[in-house]
């Protein structure tokens, strides 16, 4: 596939872990052959990009984010040729593929680390961050508070401490070392030459450490990224770099540089505020974070999501907001993990179809490229008793049959038990049954994705937030060239009346984008809309 500039702006990304999607060889673990077999489903859903979670050889102590070989495929998922076949099949269907680049750290089982720890004189010694004491970089916070006591871990083999921002089995690479930077670029080249369309770079704020700082977002880190971006642009134009940096918008803005660092970055603070606004029935948290969201260079894009493979992170909220979110969405303490909530979209929203639709409606209409986490399109549930974040990484539910249609293996052999409970279990929630129903969540998701893709205004248009006096209504105008779309969301569980000041669009009629029905022409008076509980409208403005 050719990579047109800015293709990612109109992308709708489907996030999937190969292990969870479909098991073609019957060993209880999803694999690339299985994923390839299910590409028709992905295509029918309407998404045009797949983001694959780590599939590399790994001890799997952190679901693959602990890589022990960057140039291969974990044997459970197949071989490199299986990946190539999958990639080709995806491209044949017009689906791009972006993969993970866990650049900040490796597994402690990676041969590099094994060599590094073997001796202070080993040539790989400087590939990691070593110290004789555990007192350096005290300004750096501990991210995995539930499991880690320090960012330093004692290595009994080399009798010194190594630096790790995440789990202690994930030593940080030393990006001050040019050899490390060169090696990581070689790895990226390896995959880009194979045809992947881009990378999600994991944990980018932590690449460089400096004494007297919090070791996040350092200028030297930006230099590393600029160097990578320059090489991508020169050698693989159009390939995407997507930043995972869980930061406030103002701290995130530098990761776009002058359009010379990342193409896209996740908008982490927006996501919890969407949930907060919904529960508060008040647009304030959402509009405030939009107000705080800086302009980004042309060619750059925010990446939006509702849920993903991690906990619903609450790092980028105030203490008061965090307490509120915990009380509203995670009353049971076992739903909480680190600084977040380990639940899927449907259970978070009490299986309420109207709220699920509204949240997806906002996801797909706010400025940015949306990501849909696998299974959320059918309303899959979670299992908070599985430990860590495994409860949101259960097998995809394809049918009401054996193992939910995920695998022919004995149920006991599956990498994870499927969801079995009567509300969210595969017999109640599955692709096959929802495909047969015109009004299922899956059918609705296909429809809204189609509507979203019908207009480039959602991917590339500007946004102007309206501030109607009714604070339960979140309304904004998206505009691109001559195309204007009005989005109105009712965050309330009750019907609402709202008056919108649309005088500048006087003379236009509104065309509701789902049913294509026309609404009255805009005049001088405030435009009155009445909205049902959790209802939303997308209107195209037309001057006829």
């Amino acid at each position: 596939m050719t990579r047109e500039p800015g293709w990612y702006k109109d992308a709708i990304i489907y996030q999937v872990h190969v292990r969870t999607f479909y098991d073609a060889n019957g060993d209880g673990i999803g694999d690339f052959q299985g994923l390839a077999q299910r590409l028709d489903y992905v295509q029918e859903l309407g998404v045009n990009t797949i983001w694959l979670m780590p599939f590399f050889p790994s001890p799997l102590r952190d679901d693959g984010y602990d890589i022990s070989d960057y140039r291969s495929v974990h044997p459970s998922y197949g071989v490199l040729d299986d990946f190539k076949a999958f990639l080709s099949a995806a491209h044949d269907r017009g689906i791009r593929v972006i993969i993970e680049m866990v650049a900040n750290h490796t597994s402690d089982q990676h041969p590099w680390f094994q060599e590094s720890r073997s001796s202070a004189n080993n040539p790989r010694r400087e590939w990691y961050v070593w110290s004789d004491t555990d007192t350096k970089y005290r300004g750096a916070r501990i991210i995995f508070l539930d499991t880690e006591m320090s960012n330093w871990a004692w290595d009994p083999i080399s009798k010194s401490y190594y630096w790790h921002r995440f789990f202690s089995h994930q030593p940080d690479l030393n990006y001050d070392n040019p050899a490390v930077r060169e090696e990581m670029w070689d790895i990226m080249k390896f995959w880009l030459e194979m045809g992947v369309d881009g990378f999600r770079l994991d944990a980018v704020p932590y690449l460089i450490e400096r004494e007297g700082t919090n070791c996040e977002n350092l200028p030297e880190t930006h230099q590393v990224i600029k160097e990578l971006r320059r090489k991508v642009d020169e050698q693989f134009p159009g390939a995407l770099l997507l930043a995972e940096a869980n930061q406030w918008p103002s701290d995130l803005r530098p990761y776009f540089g002058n359009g010379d660092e990342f193409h896209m970055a996740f908008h982490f603070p927006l996501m919890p505020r969407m949930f907060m606004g919904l529960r508060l029935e008040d647009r304030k948290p959402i509009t405030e974070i939009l107000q705080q969201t800086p302009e980004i260079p042309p060619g750059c894009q925010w990446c939006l999501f509702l849920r993903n493979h991690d906990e619903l992170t609450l790092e980028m909220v105030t203490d008061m907001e965090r307490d509120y979110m915990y009380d509203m969405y995670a009353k049971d303490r076992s739903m909480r993990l680190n600084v977040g909530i380990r639940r899927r979209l449907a259970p978070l929203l009490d299986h309420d179809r109207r709220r699920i639709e509204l949240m997806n409606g906002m996801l797909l209409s706010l400025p940015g490229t949306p990501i849909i986490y696998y299974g959320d399109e059918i309303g899959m549930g979670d299992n908070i008793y599985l430990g860590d974040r495994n409860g949101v990484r259960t097998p995809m539910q394809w049918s009401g049959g054996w193992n939910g249609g995920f695998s022919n293996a004995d149920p006991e052999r599956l990498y994870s038990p499927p969801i079995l409970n009567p509300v969210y279990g595969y017999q109640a929630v599955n692709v096959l049954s929802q495909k047969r129903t015109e009004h299922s969540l899956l059918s609705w998701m296909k429809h809204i994705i189609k509507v979203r893709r019908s207009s480039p205004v959602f991917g590339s248009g500007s946004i102007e937030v309206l501030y109607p006096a009714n604070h339960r209504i979140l309304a904004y105008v998206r505009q691109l060239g001559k195309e204007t779309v009005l989005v109105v969301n009712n965050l309330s569980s009750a019907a609402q009346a709202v008056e919108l000041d649309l005088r500048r669009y006087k003379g236009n009629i509104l065309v509701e984008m789902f049913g294509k029905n026309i609404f009255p022409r805009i005049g001088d008076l405030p435009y009155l809309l009445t909205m049902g509980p959790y209802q939303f409208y997308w209107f195209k403005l037309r001057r006829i």
Partner: protein
Amino acid sequence: MVEETFLTDEFLRQLIDVGEVDVLIGLPTHNNAETIGPVVQAIQAGILKCFPRDRAVIINPDAGSRDGTPEIVAGASIDDGRHASKLYALRTLHSISTEYGLHPEPGTALRTIVAASELLRAKACVVLSPESTTIEPDWIQRLLRPVYKDNFDLVTPIYRRHKFEGLLMRNLLYPMTRAIYGYGIREPYASEFAISGRLATDFLTKESWDNESDRISPEMCLTARAITGEYRICQSFLGTKVHLDPSAGDLVAAMRRTAGVLFSSLDSNFSLWSTVVGSHSVPILGPESELVLEPVQVNLKRLGEMFSSGIAELEPVFRSILSPATLTELQTIARSKDGNFNYSAELWAKTVYEFAASYHKSVISRDHIIQAMVPLFRGRTLTFVLENRDSSAEEIEKNVESLCREFERLKPYLLEVWSHRK
């Protein structure tokens, strides 16, 4: 017939924009720009501190201020508008004003507040005085929480007062209300209180808002409604409230608003209060009362003179209102020398009851009856001051309690004069 509406379309439009709320803060105003600032700040701080997650609105019925009062109150909004407040709030705090110039009376203001409370389905509604410059953010919680969390329907305040402040309350309103209705409410008709949604709805749907009592002293009617409707009532200690003793002119008006309305309420509730014997205590959150004991200068001579001249000048009026025995006793007191002045609790209770009965029967103009009470109240005030000049807080409380018991003991006398005036 189309029922008259008292809410403007513009106000209704604003209420629609606010939508359902959990707590509503009513703030009636009229040219209060000088004092309203600290009140608004305390409301904001109180809501943000104690009810940050709850849907809240400030409703400001304004009687046509020309000093910018409504604009100050409207500035209390915390929203996502372009001029976002520096205060951090989890959710939007609304503040809306409406002018009710057509009938600028307290009753219209309270009616507007309870109507808004009902339309917005507020779970709890607190009404505050725009002149409460000593208000603290905690007042909001102390008034609202018992309604919001503990299912009380009416929360009345208890203030920290100087021992010679609030004399009308301590000598007349509290003892009489307690004896009449059997509820020991220290401040039965305060300008700060909280009510539940169901009491607001009940109060709003009462048959008439047109009589004078409703118009000039709606708080009294509300308390009477809560008592007679057997709603759950409690009291909450707030702290210091600035309270200036009313001047001569103000005292007549205050009497009208309080004693007049209390007397008036007896007419319609006879079947309810006539069978009540004794009283029971009303739960109190915080201290029962706090008195400030610093010595203050009271012009005792002037009080005595006003009482004596009143007795002399209004004798024809008193003959219509009081029993001969009571009048004779009062005349005797009026002639007493300095130092022997004593308007006893028993005589005071009898006097008040005879006034109430005369008011009921409208033996003369009701307004004249209330005005005639003013010099007598000054006499009772003089006795109270003399009795308690050097008393401790405990002793003062004991005296007030004793007066209350006297009112309760003499309640049969009220029933007697109510039907057959001596």
